[in-house]
Each structure stands twice: as C-alpha cells, then as structure tokens.
C-alpha cells in the first residue's frame, strides 16, 4: 500500500441552508486542504462541522459554493462516485456480514477479482491488527475493535481522502487515546488526506497538522495547533482551545503600539493588527504566561503589570492554578508549574506580570476567515 497518495480538497464558499427562514447551517466556508494533510474540523455540536463533512462526502447537497477534489468539482456527484473513505460515528459496520466481508464490501463494489480482494482484505486487517477476527460478526467484537474494522473498511480501496466523523466519540478515554495513536500511524503510513471531525480539542491538538475551528456555521480560524493556541484569531477560538484570561476594552494606538484600554486599566501588546484600532476588542493572555508576585514589584520595560487579589487555588499535580480578580474587576487565572510556584495564597494581594508579546488582540465580535495551507496567520476578509 505504498502507491497511495492524498488528494487536495478545496471548499469554496460552501453554504448549506435547510430553510429560507433559518440561518444557514454552514455559511460561506472556504478552506484549502493540501494533499496528504491531516486536518481537523473542530467545533461544538451544531457548529456545522459535521454538515461540512457530509457535504464533502456527498450525503448533503450544497446550497451554494463548490467542492473540488484535485481541482475537479464533485458537488454534483453522488457519494458512491466520489471515491472517498468514510468512518462513521457509530462505526456503521454491516451487522449481517463478517469482519472480512465488511472490509471486502468496497472492493466488491469496485468489481475487483476475488483473489485480489482476499489479499487486500488480509493486508488491511493486518494493518489494524485484527486478522484473527476476520470471521467474526460485528456484534461479537468490542467497540474499539469495531472502530478499527471501520477504519480498515474505509481505507481498503486506497481512497485518496479519508473522512472521519467523530470516530472515537463512543469510546472510553483510554481506548480513545490508544486509537488516536493508531489513526496518526495510519496517516503516516498511508500518506492520504485525512479530514477528521471532532468536538474534543485535545483530540484535535494531538492529531492534526492543521485545525479549522467552526462556530455558528463558519470557520473562525484555521492553523496549526501551535498557531491556534498562541495566536487565536477570535475570542471563540481562544476560549474553545485551552484556557484564557480575557480583558475587554477599546483598541487604541499609542506611542506606535496597539494597546487595549479598559475601565481602569490598559494592556500593551506588540500585536500588529492596526486594522482593529478604534473598535471594541479583547486581549487574550494564556494562564501560563502570567507571572504572579506577592505585593508590588518594579515594572520592567515591555511588561504589563496589574494588581489583583487571589481568590482561590486549585492543585493539579504538575501545576497549580491560581484564580484571581484584578482591581479593575476582571477574573482569571495563572498557571504555575510545580517547583516554580509563588508564595501566593488565597486573599493575598499580588501583581500580575506578562510580557507585551504574550497578549493577543482579537476583535470583540468574530469575523469570517479564509484558511490557506501553510498560512502562518489567517487573513481577515471583512
């Protein structure tokens, strides 16, 4: 199975609307997926990620826009002509067929010779380590095994793209982590394009080359896990992936620097997005970027400082979470790694410090974005 390669996929203004009177379920989604890429569509339920996947698969018709696979429009093709592998949320194994028959099914649809089918089925069952279960029925194997069979069945015909709709949603945490490892391994070994839908941010961070964050039928942001975490493009993206301290205010420009002026405080950043100046905005600071010092400290250059009161502390083993309320009224938390804790205790007056480069400015309202592969940052179309 070394001759497999991925296909590039382009979603161009893809829109899905079930009724004229309701807002679209998927609204003007643009996304370019590179050949061989592992991309995750991440979002809460109802954000349009599954509908988008179903439109790529062909189970849902597009209301507007187009989907191109390797430059060819597939929007009007039925699912069975698109040649995509698909893993369903609840496995969808055929209960009346054995494991081997299930895996052979897509090959039979492609009119392959019996002997070749048998060889390929054996190969792919070896790949997922289930050769010994080939004559069992789906009702006689465990959930994790069923998910591996579903994976095997989806890739046995060497598709250029594999679509996965919350494939690990029904499994317990330990099995989920184990299967994540197997999915990552399959992606490396097969070299085909993986499109993975999940609402689990940890799963997305662990698996993906890039993540597209969905909200309200739109893509909020596309980028690598590091980009999304370090430079969230919207408040939603910041809060959906990881924890954030959020400061609300007006974005202004002062001494050549973009800063945020809130009620009773000002936050400096080195964020270069001058286009947001003059609008309501938000500065996002990740908890591990904030350093706590009990009492007052001399403020260094290029560091934001804010006085606050510690409200409570939560131990998490490898770190502790210090929750605070600033004098201006913003609540948030700092994360202190074990061995580097401050002496702050609940009720203490502390100074919060973070470097200006650690704060990210995002608009108070979200804007649609266009994601291109390899983009360091997303470009705003509005």
């Amino acid at each position: 199975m070394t001759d497999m390669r991925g296909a590039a996929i382009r979603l161009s203004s893809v829109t899905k609307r079930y009724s004229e009177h309701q807002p679209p379920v998927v609204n003007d989604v643009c996304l370019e997926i590179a050949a061989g890429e592992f991309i995750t569509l991440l979002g809460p339920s109802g954000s349009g990620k599954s509908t988008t996947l179903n439109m790529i698969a062909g189970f849902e018709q597009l209301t507007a826009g187009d989907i191109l696979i390797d430059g060819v429009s597939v929007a009007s093709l039925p699912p069975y002509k698109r040649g995509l592998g698909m893993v369903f949320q609840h496995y969808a194994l055929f209960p009346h067929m054995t494991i081997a028959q299930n895996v052979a099914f897509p090959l039979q649809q492609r009119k392959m010779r019996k002997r070749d089918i048998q060889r390929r089925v054996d190969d792919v069952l070896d790949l997922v380590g289930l050769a010994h279960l080939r004559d069992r029925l789906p009702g006689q194997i465990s959930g994790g095994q069923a998910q591996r069979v579903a994976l095997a069945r989806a890739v046995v015909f060497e598709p250029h793209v594999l679509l996965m709709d919350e494939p690990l949603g029904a499994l317990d945490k330990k099995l989920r982590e184990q299967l994540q490892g197997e999915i990552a391994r399959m992606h490396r070994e097969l070299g085909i394009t993986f499109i993975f839908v999940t609402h689990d941010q940890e799963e997305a961070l662990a698996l993906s080359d890039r993540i597209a964050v969905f909200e309200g039928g739109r893509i909020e942001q596309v980028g690598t896990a590091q980009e999304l975490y370090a430079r969230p493009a919207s408040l939603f993206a910041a809060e959906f992936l990881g924890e954030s301290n959020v400061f609300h205010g007006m974005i202004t420009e002062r001494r050549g620097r973009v800063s945020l002026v809130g009620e009773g405080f000002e936050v400096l950043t080195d964020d270069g997005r001058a286009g947001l100046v003059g609008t309501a905005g938000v500065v996002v600071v990740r908890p591990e970027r904030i350093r706590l010092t009990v009492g007052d400290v001399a403020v260094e250059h290029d560091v934001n400082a804010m006085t606050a009161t510690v409200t409570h502390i939560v131990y998490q083993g490898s770190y502790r979470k210090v929750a605070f309320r600033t004098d201006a009224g913003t609540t948030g938390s700092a994360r202190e790694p074990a061995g580097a804790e401050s002496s702050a205790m609940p009720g203490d007056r502390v100074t919060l410090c973070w470097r200006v480069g650690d704060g990210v400015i995002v608009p108070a309202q979200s804007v649609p974005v266009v994601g291109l592969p390899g983009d360091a940052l997303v470009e705003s179309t509005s």
Partner: protein
Amino acid sequence: MPISSTPIMSASAPERPVRRLLWLSARPWYGVLLVVPAVCLLATVFAYPVAALIWLSFADPSLGLENYHRLLTDGVSLLVLLRTLRMATIVTLVTLLLAYPYAYLMTLVGRRARSVMVALVLLPFWTSLMARTFAWIVLLQDNGPINDLLAMVGLGPLELAGTEAGVTIGMTQVLLPFMTLPLYGTLRTIDRRLLDAAIGLGARPLTAFRRVYLPLSMPGVVAGAMMVYILALGFYVTPAMLGSPSESMISQLMTVRITQLLDFGAGGALATVLFLLTLLLLALVSRFLSPSAALGMSTRGER
C-alpha cells in the same frame, strides 16, 4: 386529609411490589401458577378437539390407515391440497410485494403520517370479515364496478367472482396486515445510516439496498410470510364465499366431509395432514430464521 398519611403511603407503596417480586423469585416454581388458567382453557377447547380429530382419522370407521389411503387415492383430496398450497403461495407472494414498499414507506415518513398508515393497515381488523367478503362479491361480480372499469379500458369483462383469481384478491386483502405489521416491526429497527455507509463505500443506492437493507429485513419477511402462509392454508370464509365449490380449498373440503357427509375420519385425515404441513413449515422456517434473528439482535445491539 391528615398530612401524615402521604409519607406513610409513599414509604410503603414502593416496598410492596419489591417484596412480592422477591417472594416469586425465591420460589420460581410458583410462577407456574400464572399459566394455569391459559393451560386449562387451551387443553379443553384446543388440545382435546385436535387430539380427538386426529384419533378419529385413524379410528373412524375402523382402526387403521384407511382414511389416509382414501385421501391419496380419491382424486379430489390431493388436488384440493395442492390447490390450497398453490393459492397460499400466491397470496403470500402478493401480500409481500404489496406490504414491503408500504412498510418501507412507514419507516421514512413522520410520526403523524405513520399513525395514519398504521390505522389504514388496521382498518380491516375493525370491519367484520363477512362484511368485507360480501363487499368483494359485489365488487368482483361480472357486472360489478371492477369489471365496469376494466371494460372502459377495453380489458373486460373478466371472470372474477367464483374463481381462484377472486379468492386470491379477497384473501390478499384480508391477510395484508399480517404481512405489513411484522415487516414494519423489523424494518424500523434497521439503521438507515448503514445504507449511507454502503453508498459512501461505493455502492449504488440499489446495490446498497440489495446487499445491506434487504438481508437485514429478512427476519421480518420470513415472519410475515410464515404468518400469512399458515393463515392462508386454513382459510375458510373468503374461499367459501368468493370461490366456487369446484375450486374449493382444503378447509372447505373438510367442512363438507364433516358437516355434510358426517365422515369424521376423512375430515380428520385432512385436518391432520394440514396440521402436519403447518408444523413442518414452522420447523423449516425456525431453522432458517434463527441465525437471521440473531443478526437482528446484533443490529439493535450496536445502537
């Protein structure tokens, strides 16, 4: 009302059924008492007459296989038996062809439309069998509405009343619910996402239906077909009223032998043969059904 009565009631009420359940499970053989009334009833009104009839088929007028010998050689019984089997087969196939799309549609429509469809299936049960059969006599006669309609399109008149065709039409209508309901019961348990999965894996919609949906619907098909076939074998009223004596079915022949000729032995032999045929059919089907039934369970298990 004193307020205190409420807590006392609620405290004791849930305990009682639990205690009773324990009482039953501690002495499981007490549960046998529950089926005693049904067993008594069946023994007197079903088992005894059947046993008596079977006994008569060997003992009346004299002990031996005389009645069965006559059944095979009188030239009528065997013919009627074969006709009955043929009619039952045709009726079963026709009801299956009519019921499958209907039951399939029932799984697709919304809840309100489905209640209407269920009501339409059950409607015949709320109407007397005699009334429906008389209605068919009116509809099917040589100058009845059906033949008028056929004549308008240049196809008539067809001889329907008093023929096998008429009997088949009437029996199909009467037996349709017995096919539709078990079929719907099975079809609604089939996960339609399996069809999506098949189509996504490269199967055309018709292939997906044939390879995935149809096999999963077989338990319902077999259950419905068995029910209709067995009921059709012993059908009396409709063939008696819509058919003709020269094309009678086995139950009519039995009635004639027993009530008109008072030949209990010959009637008993026919009844015994019908009984054995039904048992044989049940045995065959239960062998064929059991693996499929197990599959039907595994479909549900996956949910």
